[in-house]
């Protein structure tokens, strides 16, 4: 190992792979979502070790912070009633949360190690600052940003149309 930063990189990568595999093999949606959050956090650590702290922060804020938490809320809100609280108690058995907790603890340990250990250096290239990223996005990649906005427009209109509940109910004719 020429660069000691490579160890956290591979460790976080391994956590990401394990968490993703567990996420797609769980049969209960909430459990899968927990692993999905861990997977996204692990990817954030991967970005951090590669010298992209801004992307790492965005990954945590947008993916793990906003999108997946929204998923969890929606799934939780669908389970109301006494019978469901029983199910929920079953979901919160230690076997359900111990896996994500251990993986998250690994990541936490890694982040603490990375932050404490100064100076911070990147596995490859140099560390990109928010200023550099902003200059790139609104300079040479300006059209990319605009195209991405059209991508979101298309996705929004498509999802809005296909996901709308029709007045006559949701029966699908053959």
């Amino acid at each position: 190992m020429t660069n000691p930063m490579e160890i956290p990189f591979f460790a976080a990568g391994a956590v990401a792979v394990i968490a993703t595999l567990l996420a797609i093999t769980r049969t209960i949606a909430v459990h899968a979502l927990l692993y999905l959050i861990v997977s996204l956090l692990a990817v954030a650590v991967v970005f951090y070790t590669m010298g992209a702290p801004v992307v790492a922060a965005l990954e945590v804020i947008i993916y793990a912070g906003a999108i997946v938490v929204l998923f969890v809320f929606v799934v939780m809100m669908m389970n109301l009633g006494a019978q469901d609280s029983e199910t929920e108690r079953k979901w919160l058995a230690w076997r359900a949360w111990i896996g994500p907790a251990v993986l998250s603890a690994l990541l936490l340990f890694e982040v603490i190690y990375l932050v404490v250990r100064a100076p911070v250096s990147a596995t490859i290239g140099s560390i990109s600052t928010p200023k550099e990223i902003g200059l790139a996005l609104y300079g040479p990649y300006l059209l990319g940003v605009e195209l991405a906005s059209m991508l979101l427009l298309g996705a929004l209109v498509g999802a809005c149309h296909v996901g709308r509940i029709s007045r006559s109910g949701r029966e699908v004719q053959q």
Partner: protein
Amino acid sequence: MGCVHVISLLPLLIIAATSVVVLLAIAVRRNHAAAFGLTLAGLAAGICSTFFTPPNQATQLLLMDRYAFFFMGLLMAASLFIALLSYGYLAAREARREEFYVLLLVATLGAMTLTASSHFTSLFLGIEILSVALYGLIAYLRDRSLPLEAGIKYLVLAGSSSAFLAFGIALVYADLGVLDFATVAQRISSTQSGSALGLLIPGTVLILVGVGFKLALAPFHMWTPDVYEGAPAPVTAFVATVSKGGMFALLLRYFSLSGADRSPRLLLVLSIIAIASMLAGNLLALFSTNIKRILAYSSIAHMGYLLVAAEVSSRLGVGAGAFYLVAYFVMILGALGVVTLLSSGERDADRFEDYRGLFWRRPVLALIFTAMLLSLAGIPLTAGFLAKFYLVAAGADSHAWLLIFVLVVTSTIGLFYYLRVVGVMFHQPASERLVPEPLPRRTPAVSVVLVALSAFLIWFGVFPSPLLRLIQFAIGKIF
């Protein structure tokens, strides 16, 4: 990025603005005719703008040259025809019709971005815009099970192919450290023995997987028949023309940029894909009894033929490829236009029974369909024949004999299933069936489209020199 660059983006700006205007019009008041009219006006303005917009490199992402303008014009013309086909089709089937045009415009924008891409970022964004809008378009008739199923299939497979593409781009970047095509080509040719990390070839092959999926080339073609069958007929026409056309224009540009320094290993992979596509498309179509599926298999075969042009990638090859693409657009739009016109409100006309004795019931429509199918088969006097002729000429010029041999043999196989459909149409029905069934809906727009496409078909097949001159003018800059 200055004023000059913004002006050179005019066709893209017009289409993007039109999609937003249609969206705002829907927000103010839902009106099918208004949304339709705005879409047509926007597309027509976009086509006109390609004739006088000054070419320029607009940032490193988009190269707005005459080549891009030519293909943008072609894609917008195809979208215009598809919008005309959709109007009557949607009016008979779906309560909320207006969003269709927004999605159509956004998808067209994605395909247009591809034709101007000179950077992997714009390539990826273009493909994603196209795919995401297509999910909505394919599943647009959301009360029916077949379009929904097709939409989900396309969603899953396009998502995984995008993953391949992104990974391939990442490998190329890891190796070369640049993302714009010109520098990538330059780095490839300067390091003769290959790259520093040896990731270039794996990266390129992974990119080819993503591109091959979009074009439905042979090992990645599984989705095509199901999506063609399930999607509404005008959307099928869109998938077959605009989506593949944009991708193919990009492929031709990329190969002509990387020029003669391409590695023989990559050429071998391309040859195998081309041969497999030609064989798989034509052989699978033999066993199909559904018109939309036959057209899907035939489009796989046609993409295989087109790949011959991409492989040759001489000036002759690119010219032949562009001509073939124009002819293919005309033929497939015409064929699916007939399918759209014959479709009832219940389901699309994709079974053989729908066409049995069509000639005796609706002779003009049957003749148009026959002309389109004969052109797809490559019969002389049609655009399809000349397109294949130029392709063979370009191939012979570069001594790609094996590819030409497979092309000729598989075209002969193809003749069989096209003629089978033609035979069904001329089949004399029992006397009680002679009573013509009324068309589901009076659709003058579709008739105009079909007549115009037939005129193009014969015009390009008999007197191709104006189109050839236009193509030579368009590709003049990239060689």
